[in-house]
């Protein structure tokens, strides 16, 4: 537990985390406004603007939050990457030689921090959709609970990949370039290239959320909307395992 507290101190006492929360809030507010409220106030020249009515809007919002895959990547790579390029990692091991303990603590903290940020983003989206969106009603409680564990699955998998990348590269900049590049390319390839969607982590991350939306310009640009839940979970488990293996191998193969 104390290792987890140490990692939490490292994250929570920096400006990075509050800054990511602000970015998440701003982005989700914009998405909520454009997809739930804009159609009602749009000038006539916009024609029939796309709009997601309530209660589907909430599931759509959850899917958009889960698409913020950069968040666990930035948190894990930025905080841990700096440690590898200095002697901070060596000093951590000199105080507690359990590499597994350090990895688990980081996994727990960055997953939890990302999950909290997702929940925060969902809250912002939901507030705007509830206040300004068309339609009425809310998903049942079980659906809301479902959003929470799905957010956790997305946060865990992308955190594992982020830690794996930084353990392999030992560089914050290189880790960010590789992981954010992968995040962008993976989603893009899943939309436009043949059967890749069946393996894409971005597709699985959003595919966990069945919004029931099949029309409009957004559905075609969101990978994974047709994936079944077991398929999406299988993809995520595979990528998470890959991230763990990368992290473990990256920390073992080189001296601290």
């Amino acid at each position, binding site marked *: 537990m*104390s*290792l987890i507290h140490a990692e939490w101190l490292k994250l929570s006492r920096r400006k990075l985390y509050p800054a990511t929360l602000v970015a998440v809030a701003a982005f989700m507010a914009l998405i909520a406004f454009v997809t739930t409220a804009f159609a009602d106030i749009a000038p006539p020249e916009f024609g029939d603007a796309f709009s997601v009515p309530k209660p589907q809007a909430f599931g759509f919002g959850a899917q958009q939050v889960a698409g913020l895959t950069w968040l666990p990547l930035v948190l894990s790579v930025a905080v841990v990457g700096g440690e590898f390029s200095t002697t*901070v990692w*060596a000093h*951590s*091991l000199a*105080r*507690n030689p359990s590499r597994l303990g350090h990895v688990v603590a980081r996994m727990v903290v960055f997953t939890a921090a990302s999950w909290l940020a997702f929940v925060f983003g969902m809250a912002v989206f939901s507030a705007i959709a509830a206040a300004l969106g068309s339609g009425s009603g809310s998903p049942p409680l079980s659906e809301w609970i479902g959003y929470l564990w799905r957010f956790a699955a997305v946060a865990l998998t992308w955190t594992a990949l982020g830690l794996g990348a930084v353990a392999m590269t030992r560089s914050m900049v290189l880790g960010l370039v590789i992981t954010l590049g992968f995040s962008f390319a993976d989603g893009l390839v899943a939309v436009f290239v043949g059967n890749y969607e069946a393996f894409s982590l971005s597709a699985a991350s959003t595919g966990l959320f069945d919004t029931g939306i099949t029309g409009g310009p957004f559905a075609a640009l969101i990978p994974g909307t047709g994936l079944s839940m077991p398929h999406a979970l299988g993809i995520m488990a595979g990528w998470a395992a890959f991230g763990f293996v990368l992290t473990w191998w990256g920390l073992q193969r080189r001296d601290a």
Partner: protein
Amino acid sequence: MTSSDPAIRVRGLTKSYKKVQALAGVDFDVPAGKVTGFVGPNGAGKTTTFRALLGLTRPDSGTIEMLGLPVPRELAVITRRCGAIIEEPGLLQALSGHTNMQIAADTLGLGHGRIQDLLEFVGLADDARRKVSEYSKGMRQRLALAAALIAGPELLLLDEPLDGLDPVGQKVFRSRLRELADEGATVVVSSHDMADIEAIADHLIVIRRGSIAAAGPLDSLLDGGGTRVVIENPSSAMEVLRAAGIEARFTGSELFVSSQDRERIVRTLGAAQMFPSEVSAHRSSLESVFFELTGEEEE
């Protein structure tokens, strides 16, 4: 482990990085409860040795015991009884000194009760809430020392802790290390600065090109094995001693005599009506011993 057992025992330690042999069969003991200087030129293997002691690098062969326990098998126990600074202070610059101390304590699984005392011990209590990025180099080194002391360690491994400190910072740091050793801690300080080590160490280990060139109590290593004589006419005195079969050389008004038999030296000179104002054991500087042992060129 008894008090007479070494705090660290290293045998046959080897380590190669690709084609470079960093350690070529290193053997040494570090006596418990003393300050040991671990000196050598840059690239001699000091940091690699420290890293191997702490399990941060895997040696190719050899055995290490710290506090009577084998490394790496008992590292989990050893690291709770041992504090370390490895190369740089290893601090998170974006966080305050106090938060860095909290993280060090948490990583060891300890409470935060000693943090304030340690910050006072290293003179940083008033700056504890400032970010480490705003600290001077000396302040960072002192914070790193405080973090290394968080568990109240029996053994401190400090790799180049005085590097880059100004004279005042060095003096403060040295006095803190002396206090710790006087309280019974074993302190190992690596440095390539001989003045640092001579000022603080009781025991010395000299490493050169991955091998131990010398090890032992500082006084015995600095004992030049001869006698220093201050006399009015050293040139004539040298001739008198040489005539008596005693090898001698002089610099200025000082005569360096190879013999340690001071009574015979005084008697021989006295017979020639020459009376020295001072006769003492000849003590080499650590710097000259270092250059002699390592084969480095003096500038």
